[in-house]
């Protein structure tokens, strides 16, 4: 956490001049590049929602994650608790983004909404172009199944199932035929370097290996987004390095990765760090990643508005 002020200072440009950043890329939506939109929160007009599906440039790729003024309010008792207060965030295909923040900052809530495990109280969330705001539980389950690969801190493998059967689990809910499932599970395990451990149960694997099985499970559906919640939180440094190397490899294969962490060392592997504090995005920008490449051009439309609230 002591690093935070430093990294914020190192990253002023994205918040002050989002237009300039957008100018470097044709990846993003034309309406967002209009100056009038950037200085204020984007109004959530119905016609705007409609226009999103009719791009002026048909070749412009759809961002994987597109959060517009997302608010989440919990009512644990009579008191309302706003966990998220107007989050605007866009993450393009192939990005490797770390979301950082202390506990209670709302990063877990953000992760739940991004992961379609929960829905926003207000605002729009499009996952790979699909508006998930109006979806019921069944549709959300399908979106999670098709679009998102989860990696959890606790690995969350089913102890009674062999590694390959843990990996094929998401495919069983996608009604993929048995033979195909097995083949894809074995392929995913091969990609995480566990081809020789497919019949081991989680209890017979080390923590790092278990997390690699979990990554294989996240990969097996070929999702638009890999969402990792503190993936190294339960791992020793060797296993952490192992898993982070795996994420680097996946990034090189153009996977979109969102990593939630509170460890600076882990976050620095990503190419962009989003800091969340008190339910708003505090700062956002490229960090000097270990991979050495420059940060991808990103959309930061909501940062200024987040701070002003």
């Amino acid at each position, binding site marked *: 956490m002591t690093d935070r002020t430093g990294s914020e200072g190192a990253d002023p440009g994205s918040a002050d001049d989002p237009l300039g950043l957008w100018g470097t890329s044709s990846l993003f939506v034309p309406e967002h590049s209009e100056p009038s939109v950037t200085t204020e929160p984007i109004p959530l007009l119905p016609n705007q929602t409609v226009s999103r599906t009719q791009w002026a440039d048909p070749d412009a790729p759809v961002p994987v994650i597109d959060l517009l003024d997302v608010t989440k309010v919990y009512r644990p008792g009579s008191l309302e608790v706003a966990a998220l207060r107007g989050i605007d965030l866009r993450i393009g295909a192939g990005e490797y983004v770390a979301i950082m923040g202390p506990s209670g900052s709302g990063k877990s809530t953000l992760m739940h909404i991004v992961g379609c495990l*929960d829905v926003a109280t207000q605002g729009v969330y499009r996952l790979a172009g699909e508006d998930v705001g109006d979806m019921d539980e069944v549709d959300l*389950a399908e979106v999670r*199944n098709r679009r998102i690969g989860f990696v959890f801190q606790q690995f969350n493998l089913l102890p*009674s199932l062999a590694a390959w059967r843990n990996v094929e689990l998401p495919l069983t*809910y996608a009604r993929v035929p048995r033979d195909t499932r097995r083949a894809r599970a074995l392929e995913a395990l091969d990609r995480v370097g566990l081809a020789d451990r497919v019949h081991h149960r989680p209890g017979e694997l080390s923590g790092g290996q278990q997390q690699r099985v979990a990554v294989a499970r996240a990969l097996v559906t070929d999702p638009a987004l890999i969402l990792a919640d503190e993936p190294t939180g339960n791992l020793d440094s060797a296993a952490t390095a192992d898993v982070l190397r795996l994420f680097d490899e996946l990034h090189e294969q153009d996977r979109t990765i969102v990593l939630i962490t509170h460890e600076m060392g882990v976050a620095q592997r990503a190419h962009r760090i989003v800091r969340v504090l008190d339910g708003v995005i505090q700062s956002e920008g490229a960090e000097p990643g270990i991979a050495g490449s420059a940060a991808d051009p990103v959309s930061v439309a909501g940062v200024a508005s987040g701070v002003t609230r």
Partner: protein
Amino acid sequence: MNWWETIRTGWDAILGHRLRSGLTMLGILIGIAAVVLTVGLGLGSQQEVGARISSLGSNLLIVTPGSSTTTGGIRGGFGTASTLTTDDADALASTVAAPDIAAVAPIKSTSESLTAGSTNWTTSVVGTGPSWLDVRARTLSDGRFLTSADVAESAAVTVLGSETATELFGSPDAVGQAVTINNVDFTVVGVLASAGSDASTNLDDQAIVPISTASNRLIGGTTRNAVSTIYIQAAAPDMLSAAYQEADALLLNLHHIASPTSADFTISSQQTLLATATSVSRTLTILLTGVAALSLLVGGIGVMNIMLVSVTERTREIGLRKALGAPPAAIRRQFLVEATVLGLAGGVLGAALGIAGALVLPNLLGTTIVVSPAAVVGSIAIAMAIGVVFGVYPATRAARLAPIDALRSE
């Protein structure tokens, strides 16, 4: 996830907690075994009663003195109001007055001590006529039965049951032997073929004598012509009701009774006896089945309890499955199938235990247990239904868990 895989997953989960699943199944198992056994016992006792009543003979009507406080007493002639007489029997036997009655066998019985040489044997001595053999559907293994001449002459002759003969003479081969009953010397003229025994009477342990001999030389008393029972055999099964009406009208007339409601006799058929007997055993069966059903209910609550524990214990697994894209229906189905598999396994094992019990218990208790396939299939279906019914609530609870809450749980 298709049904087969869901069943496999459920089975894996059950095998993952062998002891717990086994104990849960035990509740269903005991309940189903109890149902199979009690239904079997009920059917068995009905069958037994049916066999006993049909062993009386076929197409039978049984006339008993209705106003008598004691029937067939040792001193039937003295004081007791036995309203049936040999005259009644003779009138019923008339083909003119009662054309649908094929045969009539009046009975006058007493318990006497039989002596042959130095051997004593106390048994039931039945005084009757020659038609008894046909009416009661008995056969002889040796010798001859009573004749009309025996009755007319009050002859001192007797036909022994096979067991009585064996007790007195060491073998059923007793024709020509002498036996003393109440200081009267009788000659054994025939031996009845064995008819087995039922729970209440031993059909093979009795001595048949002419009814006239019984009233005049054994029992005596002032109402010598009184009888305890008159068996009437209808000519054919479809003449039974005609025979009933003829006998009823004839006896009312003979007894000078105007209103049938004040009749001093009762005519019952095998059907009415059977109905009475079955209604008793049916009540018993219903009672026992009720107890068995209660134990099934307890077993079902056990299933629900364990499924709720299972849902709580596997909250994290449910959360994970939901995060990986399992819709609520899939989660509900998974737990429902698990409960159903528990119920079904308990049902199959319980039915097996019930069948095993039905094979072993009759040898120990001397009762008849009839395992009907319908009861077995039905009880297995009930066990499955119990799994479903008591699985619905836990499964719905699992399906309703919010994925984030479920994932957060420890």
